[in-house]
Each structure stands twice: as structure tokens, then as C-alpha cells.
């Protein structure tokens, strides 16, 4: 696809009025360096060959595009599930970590750092590091370490060091701060492997390109599975926005394809307990990027809430802020309860237990009107194994 697209990042690292690299000078050389090389590396034959082969044989791609017949019947349309839950490590996150680890290797970096909230990106990073034999340090909020014990154990088993972020609210945003501090202190040998389309330019663009495989596959799979040339809708959940960015990427300039991103509204958009950044946030700078974020009147970043640990980021990737601004995408939200209901529904209609994050995307089915002949693609970003404790508590199994 053309880099001239008005929905893509421009040469200044901006998506419209969003994005950029609002970073302290200490990070500037690292960011400048990455900015200089990332496109050349990604576009190189050597990278593409290695990346594509890992995606195929290690991650298990292409992930199926599955026509969910019973779900389709229920909603009177044609629902296709993009099965990122079937990837190795159980979510889309691995597409990005396998790609960035190769970039890190090309740059000669020896030590990988990452932030993680629920632990999915941490596990995907630790996995890629184990695969490549690179040292791995994952920052995780102290509160999240307690909430996500199985993923902490997984990372440790994979050989990663899990460091507790003890500042602020001790969750994802603080883990991100801690990772950035580490990078400031280790500018030479360390690569910061960010887990979503957030952070300073070029991260949002780099991660979007590495997740773009999702829409690349949807584009040919929909032709294979239907008599249509393109899907009518592509729907994905948004935390930072990487699975959504990947699901939308190759359709950005094809305005016939309606793009829908679903935020987590927690207890409700206006409840004060929400992660619906577009609905409730306003413009500011978070982790080096100008975008919408949840903040107080004094510009302090506030802690979001969602039942789903992967969606409670107080900001949103600048690409999505721009897609919202330009009305290219529709941003809606789903509550905890709606996501839970959708998780149970998918499980019992199709025999697929989705991640809580992905269940927010599924909730769009009950919130929008579709035509009987529409092809509606919903990205199932991950599987529900990690959420079984929540499901057990909430459903009383």
C-alpha cells in the first residue's frame, strides 16, 4: 500500500495532529537511530524472508478466517472470525514481537526490554527472546504481577527477568515508564520492544506494519471464502490499538470497508471506572505520543479501569485518534458486562473461548445493525485461557 495515504504516518511521525516523539533528550539518539533504520530493515528481503518464515512455521500463520455460522444466524449476517487466538502464545502479540526481535538483531542489540500489563506482550516478548537467545527484561506493575501470576511464571520459565514497577499506580502505564527509564540508562545495547501502536514515533508505525499481516491475510481470505472483493466491516478491540491497526491496515484507503474499533468502557462510559479513551479522554501527551488520553483537569494521567487487563491503557495509539478524527473509523465501546456476555455467547455458539479483550470486539454485534449479505470480519485477538479465573468468578463455574 502507498505510504502517501492520508491515514498513514507522515514524514514527521504524525498521524494528522497526533503522534510525534515527545521524548526527553536522553531518548532522542535511540529514537533517531531506530527511525533511520526501521523501514530499510522491514523492507529488506532478508528481513521479509525470515519474518514470513517465522510467522508461518513458528507462529502458525496464516491464521484462519472462520465463518461462524451459528453466530451469523443469530445476528442475521455473515460473521467471519479472524483467529489470532490460534497463534503461538495465544494472541496477536507474537506477530509484533517476532518482527521487532528481528529488527533488534539487525541493529546488533543484545538486551531486550518490554512493558506488559496482563502479561500477554511480556510472554510474547520472552518467547521471541528465548527463540533468538537474547536477554529479556520485562517490566510489569506490582499490582499486575499479583493479578497475573500464571503469565509471570510463563515469562520466568522462558528465561525472562520480570521486574516490578513500583511507582504510581503500579500498573501498565508505570511499567511503560519503568521500561523507558531502563532505556534511558542503557542506550547502547538495549532495544525497547513496545507492545502496541503507542509510544514515540516510529513505534506506532513499526508495530502497525508488523501487525499488518492480519489484514493482508483477511484481504485474500475474504475473496477465497466469499464472492466479495472486500469485507463490509472489520471490527477489532482497542487497548493501545495494535490488533485493530493490524486488522485495518490494508483497508485504510479502501473506504468501502467500514472500520470499527471497540474500546473498553468498564462499568460504563460515564461511570468513572472506564478505559474508553476516545469517549472520555482529551488531547495530551502520553509515553511520547500526542493522542487522546485519560487525564485530570491538571493534566495528570489517570488510571483507567476495565475487566480486561489488556485494554486498560490510559491512552490510545495515535493512528486510532486520527482515524476517529477523520471519521475513517467508528469508535464504539463495550462494558465489562457486555464483553462477558459476548464471551459466553461465542463459547456456547461456536466452541471458541475468546480473550476478554476480544470479547469487546464481539460485543459490537449487539450494538450495530448489519445487512443479511454483509461480510463482517471480527478479529479474535486472543484466546481466553488467561481469563479463566475471571470467567469462573463471574459465571460461577
Amino acid at each position, binding site marked *: 500500500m502507498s505510504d502517501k495515504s492520508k491515514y498513514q504516518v507522515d514524514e514527521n511521525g504524525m498521524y494528522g495532529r497526533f503522534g510525534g516523539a515527545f521524548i526527553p533528550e536522553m531518548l532522542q539518539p535511540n529514537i533517531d537511530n531506530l527511525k533511520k533504520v526501521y523501514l530499510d530493515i522491514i523492507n529488506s528481503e532478508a528481513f521479509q524472508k525470515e519474518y514470513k518464515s517465522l510467522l508461518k512455521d513458528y507462529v502458525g500463520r496464516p491464521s484462519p478466517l472462520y465463518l461462524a455460522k451459528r453466530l451469523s444466524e443469530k445476528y442475521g449476517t455473515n460473521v467471519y472470525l479472524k483467529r489470532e487466538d490460534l497463534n503461538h502464545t495465544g494472541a496477536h502479540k507474537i506477530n509484533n514481537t517476532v518482527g521487532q526481535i528481528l529488527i533488534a538483531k539487525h541493529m546488533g542489540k543484545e538486551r531486550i526490554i518490554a512493558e506488559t500489563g496482563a502479561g500477554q506482550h511480556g510472554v510474547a516478548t520472552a518467547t521471541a527472546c528465548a527463540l533468538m537467545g537474547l536477554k529479556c527484561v520485562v517490566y510489569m506493575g506490582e499490582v499486575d504481577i499479583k493479578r497475573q501470576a500464571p503469565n509471570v511464571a510463563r515469562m520466568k520459565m522462558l528465561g525472562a527477568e520480570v521486574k516490578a514497577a513500583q*511507582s504510581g499506580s503500579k500498573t501498565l502505564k508505570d511499567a511503560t515508564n519503568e521500561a523507558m527509564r531502563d532505556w534511558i540508562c542503557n542506550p547502547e545495547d538495549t532495544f525497547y520492544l513496545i507492545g502496541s501502536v503507542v509510544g514515540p514515533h516510529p513505534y506506532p508505525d513499526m508495530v502497525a506494519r508488523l501487525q499488518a499481516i492480519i489484514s493482508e491475510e483477511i484481504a485474500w481470505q475474504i475473496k477465497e471464502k466469499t464472492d466479495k472483493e472486500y469485507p463490509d466491516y472489520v471490527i477489532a478491540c482497542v487497548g493501545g490499538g495494535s490488533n485493530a491497526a493490524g486488522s485495518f491496515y490494508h483497508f485504510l484507503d479502501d473506504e468501502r470497508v467500514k472500520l470499527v474499533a471497540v474500546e473498553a468502557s468498564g462499568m460504563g462510559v460515564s461511570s468513572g471506572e472506564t478505559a474508553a479513551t476516545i469517549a472520555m479522554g482529551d488531547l495530551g501527551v502520553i509515553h511520547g505520543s500526542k493522542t487522546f488520553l485519560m487525564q485530570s483537569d491538571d493534566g495528570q494521567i*489517570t488510571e483507567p479501569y476495565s475487566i480486561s487487563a489488556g485494554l486498560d491503557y490510559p491512552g490510545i495509539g495515535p493512528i486510532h485518534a486520527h482515524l476517529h478524527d477523520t471519521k475513517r473509523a467508528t469508535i464504539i465501546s463495550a462494558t465489562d458486562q457486555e464483553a462477558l456476555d459476548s464471551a459466553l455467547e461465542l463459547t456456547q455458539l461456536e466452541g471458541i473461548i475468546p480473550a476478554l479483550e476480544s470479547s469487546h470486539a464481539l460485543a459490537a454485534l449487539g450494538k450495530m445493525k448489519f445487512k443479511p449479505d454483509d461480510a463482517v470480519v471480527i478479529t479474535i485477538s486472543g484466546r481466553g485461557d488467561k481469563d479463566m479465573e475471571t470467567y469462573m468468578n463471574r459465571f460461577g463455574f
Partner: protein
Amino acid sequence: MNRIQKLLQEKKDIFSAYFTAGYPHLEDTMPVLEALQEAGTDLVELGMPFSDPLADGPTIQKSSEDALENGMSIKKLFEQIKDMRKTIDMPIVLMGYFNPVFKYGVEAFVAKCKEVGVDGVILPDLPFDEYNDKYQQLFEDANISNIFLITPQTPDERIKLIDANSNGFIYMVSSAAVTGAKSGLSDQQLAYFNRVNNLGLSTPRIIGFGISNKETFTTACKYASGAIVGSAFVKLLAEKGADKVSINDFVKGIKDTSEK
């Protein structure tokens, strides 16, 4: 000429202290400023606390958290320092992260700085290009110095660009570190100071990060117009509170023996 430019023209071995506004108690901002001045401090960086201070180490993180808990905000800070020029002659630099200032409104912020007598601003995560594009005129019209950071990794070309667009001082970060990371200045750091000093810059430098005692302060002053003590001073406030006597002892203990 603003107070920063005047100070740097007239003095060497400038002793500068950083502390977080509204810490340890909300109303300590003015008493600490006054105690610092009385003790002979030349310049103060007054920290505007932020929820996500990603260039700061544990000491300043904690002070920011406590200050926010105390109810500190930019609005509150401007109230606290609205009459400071009745008692404070030192140049005052506000230091903080960009988001709270952006939320306050950069124009309103600069206007308020001018009104209360703030001389300079350090916003480490406001990138040079963004400043250059959108805010430089605003700052210069108000005679407020925007202070940039440089680090051992900053390329010479960029240092020169920063120099050409600075009118107060350049904050020379001593090492690849967050605040309060370590003390002591290695040969490698001294070599970096020398490298920068040989670039023929027109803007004076003040060294910060890792300056915590008489020894590091004295060494730093040999390579720059002065040095900034941050975490070590915030630690003192954490232990002793806004206590005049201990602040006086602290400043004198670092500063008085620095004459070369």
C-alpha cells in the same frame, strides 16, 4: 536580559538546587525557596510534579507522587509563587513534563510565568522541533528562557542546533541515566564535558544528574558554569522537611568549599 542570563554573565560556580513544589507538604514551596536563597543558592529549579515522570529516578518519583497527593498542581503553584518576587531574587526555572503544561495551555502558562516572575522553563519531553515550530516565539516574546537538555549521546550537530536556539543555559546531563541514579563523575563523563566545551558554544552550561555532594559539585564546576543538585536535596527534604537550618547546612556544605 532576564535573571538567568544576568546570573550566568556575572557568576561562576553557580549552585543550583532542584526540588518538587508542594513537597514534603503542600505549603512548603515558598519556605523552601526562601531557605535556599538565604543559604546562598544561586538558581532554583522548581519541579512541577507529574503522574508519569519517566526521566526521574525513585527519589524524585516519590516526591512527585507525594506532592500530587498533597494537592499540588500548576494552578496551585502559580498561586503559591504569585508574590515570590517580593522576597526572592534568585532566577527561578520551572521544570516539569509537557502534558500538564499542554493541558494548562502553553500560552496561558508562559503568560503566567511572566506575570509571577519565573525566568525559565525546562520541559524535557517537549522536543526541539515542536518548540521551534510552535512555541519559540511565545517564549522569546515573554523573555522566558527555554532550557534544553543534552546528554553524552547527543551528537555534536544537535548540540550546536540547541545552542543556537537557547538563551539561558544548556542543561548538560552528566550521564545516560535518570535523576538520582549515581554519584561520582567518571573520566568518561569528564571527557564528554570537555568535548562539549570544545564546541565553542555561545550558551553557558550547567551540569545536572548525579551531582550530590561537595566533591561532585566542585568537579562539575570546573567543566561548566555551575551544577544542579536534585535528588540529594529532595532526599534531605524527605528526611528533615522544610527546615531552615538543615537546608542552610546542606547548601553551605556543598557550596562554600567549591572555590577553586
